[in-house]
């Protein structure tokens, strides 16, 4: 996807977000609504003006270097999936198991590290987070299985 088109889509999303927030604000009582209502109306108007401006620029090709600058989509998406998978693992199995599995698989698969250094790195991290938890009372996310 080219950058110019992505910017149009994102601005359209921001416009919809502000507009929806303005409509939602109308359901609040008078004293609760004045701040979010004015903010979202201002945001909505600005987003609309900016959206029209960039659509015209896109059509007129006034900034071809930006228009044809391609954005990577699949590669970032792959790493976003890694983050989501780690959180899912924590949610199901708990911090210790999830961290062990995530770190080990990531280091072998993505970082191309050898098995022994990977095991050592994971062990050091586990000791560190366990120590932090015990020493300065840091809480870990709760999990379905209760680990």
């Amino acid at each position, binding site marked *: 996807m080219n950058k110019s088109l992505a910017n149009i889509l994102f601005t359209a999303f921001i416009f919809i977000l502000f507009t929806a927030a303005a409509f939602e604000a109308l359901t609040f009582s008078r004293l*609760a609504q004045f701040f979010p209502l004015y903010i979202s109306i201002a945001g909505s108007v600005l987003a609309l003006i900016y959206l029209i401006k960039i659509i015209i620029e896109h059509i007129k090709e006034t900034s071809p270097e930006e228009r044809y600058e391609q954005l990577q989509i699949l590669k970032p998406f792959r790493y976003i999936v890694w983050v989501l998978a780690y959180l899912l693992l924590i949610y199901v199995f708990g911090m210790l198991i999830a961290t062990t599995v995530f770190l080990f698989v990531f280091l072998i698969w993505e970082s191309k590290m050898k098995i022994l250094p990977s095991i050592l790195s994971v062990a050091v991290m586990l000791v560190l987070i366990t120590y932090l938890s015990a020493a300065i009372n840091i*809480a870990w996310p709760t999990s379905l299985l209760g680990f």
Partner: protein
Amino acid sequence: MIQSAIDALFIVLDPARLGYMFLGISIGIVVGLLPGLSGTVGMALLLPFVFGLDPYIGMALLIGMIAVIHTGDTFPSILLGIPGTSGSQATIMDGFPLAQRGQASRAMGAAFFCSMVGGVIGGIALFLTIPIAEPLITSFSSPELFMLTMLGLSMAGMLAGKSVFKGVMAGLLGLLIGSVGSAPAVPEYRYTFDTLYLTQGISLPVVAIAIFAFPIIITMLTDRTTVSKTGELQNGVLRGIKDSIKNKFLVIRSAVVGVLIGFIPGLGGSVVDWLAYGFGKKTVKNNHFGEGDIRGVIAPESANNAKEGGSLVPTLLFGIPGSGTTAILLGGLTLMGLQAGPQMITSDLDITLSIVWTLVLANVFGAALCIILIKPISKLSLIPGEKIVPFLLVLLVIGAYQSTMSWGDLVIFVIIGLLGYVMTVLDWPRPPLLIGFVLAMSAERYYWISIERYGWDWISNPLVIVLALLIVGLLSGGAIMKKFSKQVETKGGN
């Protein structure tokens, strides 16, 4: 007063008390180093241990920790582009680009030196303002506080970058996200969608970590690069210190901004670094703020440590805490058999003066310790992204979870993180969003109180007019201030 100050110095220099101060310093640096942990976490950790302690020892421990949090938080801000605490957000703007050019040591040398000087100025300000604190603090009521939030919001416009449209929209988006939760004027929840987590609003550490850290980790993995894009690490600690000395007037100006913001309870310390950064950007000639200008590190780092001295004035003398950290400090005072109030400058003056000395000494020792640690820690910027990011992600997840210890924190981390990533890719500025978020609740609260209490008469308050003129002056380019800024600040930014 001078004799009392000398007596207090000898009390603080007692070896046992110094030992406790060093323990506090060590904990403060670790808390600052780990993204997501704040001074509140550090205070909550130490509080149980001060029960029944000699007040001098207890205060050495607590103040030693508070004093250096904004020194230790510089490491992740510069090396990884992730704010260690909410007080080091603005340091990222130029600190991280410097690290990308292999100049992390220079940036950290300047940052730690300025943190030390700022902290010492904060301590001196605490000492000097003890006799005049009351009229100073009571001169700020809700209209003036509202104008201060407007001053903070005007920084969003200044940090908009090339597109003012994008910057203002990002600021408005921050204000909108900040209005999630309970309304300050009436008992009513907004934008909570029947979710219990959102009734308390979205917490600042989660937003700050997500908006800066998430894009960094995805970008580092996608590009397969190290933080230092040159692949080398230049020695530059001394150069950074020299840069700071060369920009001494900027250091002092920023520290004064920090102290003044610290004095005012209710504004919140999270905005102090942005204000100092914005002032620096507007008052320094020929600057390249945002592109790796060392003066963009000097300004916020001088201010965030200085703020601590200022914030202790309302806390100790009036029992008005300006933040979660100082609120717990008040609890600590009670546990040690003390009470905040006017007696802190009469019968308990020696305790107050020992706090001033502890603040000054902890800043000096904390900065020295961090300078020693620069060399080993800055090697982090040479580790390839795919090897450091998984470990970073583990720490970020744990850090984000500490805000309210709810899964909602992690969901928000991902949502705001994705928003931050798209904004980064499409060149939308992220700092205005954070400034808007930080100031949303204060802006609404003080506006509402001002209108309810004074109608529209508050607009004619002299201090309100002064602050309004200051905002107009800053937004119109700060040309006059630039004219008077020292010649030495016009060079050597890069």
